């Protein structure tokens, strides 16, 4: 059920090792019940165990209602464990409020549709909301806002004085992500970061996130029900179903056994499915392709071999 495999880096040549003993975030046997103590009580997490290591990209996949969104609220102490443990950088999240701000600074979380939380009229002010709470000097504040806005692809000088209500949906999403980034977290947790964006913006945001990860050593936790997206980005994935981890490991291993995922209503990414179907028809294609590029290469190799 739980992951303890060594991990081979899926994306590029990064030094992501993903060993549980050097984890930045560790979640152990976590349970959660919504509206506990009321007649509407509903279990959302049933004994989840997971860990996140520095520099890794961890994917959390599952259907709506699988507990993904509940789980990520534990990663920065928005919810406090009443059963199970959450340890962030050596600090055990408990009921006490001391240290919780440090946890929230370390782990930045952007929820689904983060653009809904934008509240300042000007883009620059909204991005500055978080760092301003830290009491930074003006120069440092400005530098952070500039860095965060550039990192998500909003040129600082062109956008800082734009009114938020004049922005397009994609620009608003970037503004909201910049607002979380401006806190300079070590771990960025994103719930469906590219959902509802047009394909061009989607791949641009994805690229920028990966750049942050590789260049600045940011650790990413991506939550999605989009297998294709997670497969192309993540070093390790956790598959959630009905509040429990039902599979985990590098995406190549997890998606290599489609039969294991089928009971949970999950299918491997489309490129993987295509290759698997080709193999089923007797064409010797490698079955472990995760992205369109890999599938293309695998099919080309198979064509050359058969010719």
């Amino acid at each position, binding site marked *: 059920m739980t992951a303890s495999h060594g991990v081979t880096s899926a994306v590029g040549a990064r030094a992501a090792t993903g060993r549980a003993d050097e984890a930045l975030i560790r979640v152990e046997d976590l349970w959660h019940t919504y509206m506990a*103590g009321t007649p509407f009580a509903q279990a959302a997490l049933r004994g989840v165990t997971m860990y996140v290591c520095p520099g890794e990209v961890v994917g959390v996949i599952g259907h709506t209602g699988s507990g993904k969104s509940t789980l990520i609220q534990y990663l920065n102490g928005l919810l406090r464990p009443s059963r199970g443990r959450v340890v962030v950088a050596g600090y055990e999240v408990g009921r006490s409020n001391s240290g919780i701000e440090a946890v929230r600074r370390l782990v*930045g979380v952007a929820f689904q549709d983060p653009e809904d939380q934008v509240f300042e009229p000007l883009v620059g002010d909204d991005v500055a909301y978080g*760092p301003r709470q830290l009491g930074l000097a003006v120069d440092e504040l400005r530098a952070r806002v500039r860095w965060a806005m550039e990192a998500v692809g909003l040129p600082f000088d062109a956008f800082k004085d734009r009114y938020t209500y004049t922005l397009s949906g994609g620009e608003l999403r970037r503004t909201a992500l910049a607002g979380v980034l401006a806190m300079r977290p070590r771990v960025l947790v994103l719930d469906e970061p590219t959902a509802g964006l047009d394909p061009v913006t989607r791949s641009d945001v994805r690229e920028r996130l990966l750049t942050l990860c590789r260049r600045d050593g940011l650790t990413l936790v991506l939550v999605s029900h989009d297998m294709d997206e997670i497969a192309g980005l993540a070093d390790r994935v956790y598959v959630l179903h009905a509040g429990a981890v039902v599979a985990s490991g590098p995406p190549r291993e997890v998606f290599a056994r489609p039969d294991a995922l089928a009971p949970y209503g999950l299918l491997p990414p489309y490129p993987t499915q295509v290759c698997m179907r080709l193999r089923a028809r007797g064409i010797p294609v490698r079955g472990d392709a995760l992205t369109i590029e890999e599938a293309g290469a695998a099919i080309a190799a198979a064509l050359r071999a058969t010719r």
Partner: protein
Amino acid sequence: MNEFELLRNITIGQYLPADSYLHRLDPRAKILAAILVIAAVTFTPSLVGNACLLAAALALVRVGRIPLAYALRGLVPAVPLLVLLAVMQLLFFGRNYDPTSSVVFQWRWLAVTIVVTAAVLKLVVVSAARFIELLLVTSVFTLSTKTTELTLGIESLLRPFRRLRVPAHELALVVTIAVRFVPTLALEAERLMKAQASRGGRFGGGRWHFVTRVRQLLPILVPLVTYALRRGEELIVAMEARAYTGGTGRTAYTVLASGPGDWLAVCIAAAFLAAMLLAPFPA
């Protein structure tokens, strides 16, 4: 203990499915009975009377098969307000309220004198009791009434006043939407608080730091109002898309039919009100 779970403490505007006498009651009878009980709460100034009312409210919770702990949870968010109210009453009423009453406590420092009389003490207890009774009665009412029933009931009760140009249907709709939006807005506020907390926003900072707490609300209130307006607009579009044109000529899926059991409830409530008004409670 989860600082952001707001909905857990809101018992008004939720419906709790159960099979109880109160749940089966005709909504019109239930509205009338609730109004009578609320009138009884409003017009009873005595301590003994309020003890009776509290007992009656708890009995209603029982009859409605609502877990008592859940009904009482609605009080949690109101506790600071109740305490503030009590403190204000104790500090500032002094002898202005019923000067004939005996002084229980007196404290003088330079030009400041704080006098607490027996009448003020009674007032503090009675206002807290009234608040709890009102909250319990309204909670039981909404927890046992579906929104559609509520709409139908209000509309049907207001229909005789249409000659006086009372827009029965529209008023019923407004009440329904208002009640329906309470949990929706609570959930949205919860989401916004969490989002802002994730980017360095600070909330809480002690239940008693009112000024800080109010100032912290700004990053929540602005998006919450925007959200409410947007939801309102979406609702209008959704209603128009389903060809809603107002109350005239509209038929209902459920037709209300009241039996003797329903009118018995109204009679009991009326008798209760009369008893509370006429009973010779010690002042």
